[in-house]
């Protein structure tokens, strides 16, 4: 079995939001030796995968059985007054669904890595509306493609080749030759040489430039002096506006250069409003460049079940949505949460200092495929199988298209879903016991 050679066709890479599902994996035993069609990030994702040798569960650093760890994890969640659940962007929709159920049972706040990624974009969608299309439509129709605050050459390497700029499509038969590609960024990133037009704007001027573009689209008069300190000229903006109005199918892909910079949801609202305005002249769309493999699935699943995409509190028995109040950075930095469950995420490695310090001071449960700063400091840590490589299921591409996973081989570790189902069962058992005791 160890040396059995097999080829897995149409495997799905879950490293980034492109979720490329045309990967051909060569598998020898429990090692992937080739990942045909994968980009540099996808190859690193597949070829670095290790079957794992560490314990499946630990309680306060000591090796434990899954049953013991599930029991302790359930106790932590049930005993908490303000439990929070966070992460979810690197696991299957099936596991995400069980997680929302656990959050509901224990009255937790449930939040995903969206809140520190495109969370502000989610808020902007609610404010303006989402003017969206699939990547398939972009591939077949788009003749003007704008990337704003995004560096696909390094964050989504196959986006250009598979969907947005290079492929020959139904209405763009000559591929790249039929398209104009524009990059707007504060840095001349590695994506810049591949664009026809590069606009280097000054940091923190995204909103101003987007608003000026809206004004120009509407035919209002703008003076050069209005653009002072933005880094761009009126001629450059008018040229872009002319192209946007004249194209047959335009799309603006926006990255975290908008959502993570001062202004955040207002920056994204400006981009969405620009796309909306342009539909008076042509077809125009604005889509986020989502990061982790199934972060879009996390938004979808939490929305199906609570009505809101992230930052949802279930403490009163019904969902309440309030970014800034129920989002994880906030509940940790304000020292409100008294227990946590972190799934497929590493807040101890990428949250603010204040949030990390509070997380380290409360009991929390961590599920991850690898050792991280978060699993090291967890009261209860589970090592789980990797979605897409070991675990089947469903993930959502960045354009909200669901994609099935075709795993390469089985893992010695259980899936997130299996652990979470056992945890939900134990949580229910403890809650029933608590209820009986109070009666």
């Amino acid at each position, binding site marked *: 079995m160890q040396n059995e050679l097999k080829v897995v066709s149409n495997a799905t890479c879950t490293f980034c939001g492109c979720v490329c599902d045309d990967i051909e994996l060569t598998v020898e035993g429990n090692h992937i030796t080739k990942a045909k069609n994968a980009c540099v990030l996808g190859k690193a994702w597949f070829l670095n995968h290790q079957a794992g040798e560490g314990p499946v569960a630990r309680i306060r650093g000591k090796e434990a059985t899954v049953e013991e760890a599930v029991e302790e994890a359930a106790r932590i969640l049930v005993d908490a007054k303000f439990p929070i659940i966070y992460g979810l962007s690197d696991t299957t929709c099936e596991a995400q669904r069980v997680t929302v159920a656990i959050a509901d049972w224990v009255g937790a706040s449930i939040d995903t890595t969206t809140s520190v990624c495109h969370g502000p974009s989610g808020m902007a969608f609610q404010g303006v509306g989402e003017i969206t299309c699939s990547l398939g439509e972009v591939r077949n129709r788009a003749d003007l493609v704008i990337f704003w605050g995004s560096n696909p050459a390094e964050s989504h390497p196959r986006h250009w080749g598979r969907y947005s700029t290079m492929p020959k499509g139904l209405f763009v038969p000559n591929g790249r030759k039929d398209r104009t590609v524009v990059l707007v960024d504060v*840095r001349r990133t590695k994506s810049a040489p591949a664009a026809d037009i590069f606009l280097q704007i000054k940091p923190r001027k995204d909103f101003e430039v987007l608003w000026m573009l809206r004004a120009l689209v509407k035919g209002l008069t703008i003076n050069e002096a209005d653009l002072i300190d933005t880094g761009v000229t009126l001629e450059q903006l008018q040229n872009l506006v002319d192209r946007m109005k004249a194209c047959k199918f335009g799309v603006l892909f926006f990255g975290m250069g908008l959502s993570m910079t001062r202004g955040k949801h207002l920056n994204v609202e400006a981009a969405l409003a620009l796309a909306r305005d342009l539909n008076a002249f042509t077809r125009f769309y604005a889509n986020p460049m989502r990061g982790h493999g199934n972060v879009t699935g996390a938004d979808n699943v939490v929305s199906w079940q609570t009505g809101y995409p992230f930052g949802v509190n279930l403490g009163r028995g019904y969902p309440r949505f309030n970014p800034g109040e129920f989002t994880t950075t*906030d509940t940790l930095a304000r020292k409100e949460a008294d227990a946590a469950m972190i799934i497929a995420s590493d807040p101890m490695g990428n949250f603010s200092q204040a949030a990390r310090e509070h997380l380290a001071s409360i009991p929390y449960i961590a599920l991850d495929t690898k050792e991280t700063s978060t699993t090291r400091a967890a009261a209860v840590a589970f090592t789980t199988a990797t979605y897409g490589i070991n675990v089947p299921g469903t993930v959502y591409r960045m354009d909200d298209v669901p994609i099935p996973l075709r795993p390469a081989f089985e893992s010695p570790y259980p899936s997130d879903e299996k652990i979470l189902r056992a945890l939900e069962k134990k949580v229910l058992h403890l809650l029933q016991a608590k209820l009986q005791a109070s009666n």
Partner: protein
Amino acid sequence: MNKNQEELFILISGRSTRQGTSMNESKFSKEYLEETGVIQICPEDMTRLGLTAGDLVCIRSEQRSIEIPCVAAKEKELPSGLLFMAYGDWSSRLMGSDTHGTGMPNSKGTDVYLSKVCAIKKD
């Protein structure tokens, strides 16, 4: 630039190819720690401030200070006054925890003060 003399910059954190590939190996791998444990400065600012690759600089944000080696960014990639760090432990430690009602702390385009700590001997 004299030691302890501070200058205001704008810091951008973001993805890099090497950060993305090395995190698949491990976030404790040498390559990941190297990639996320360095700050990029535009070559003109490096020259103006008398910095050479590997010099330790102190980066002070509203939240806290860190000491980190610097390197020159690729030609024309960064304009003067802008710094870049690959996402990771160090860039996140500079973030504030105030999310301004969004859940997202300011992570790009934040004000930081840079000062030179000391030159380190290069191998």
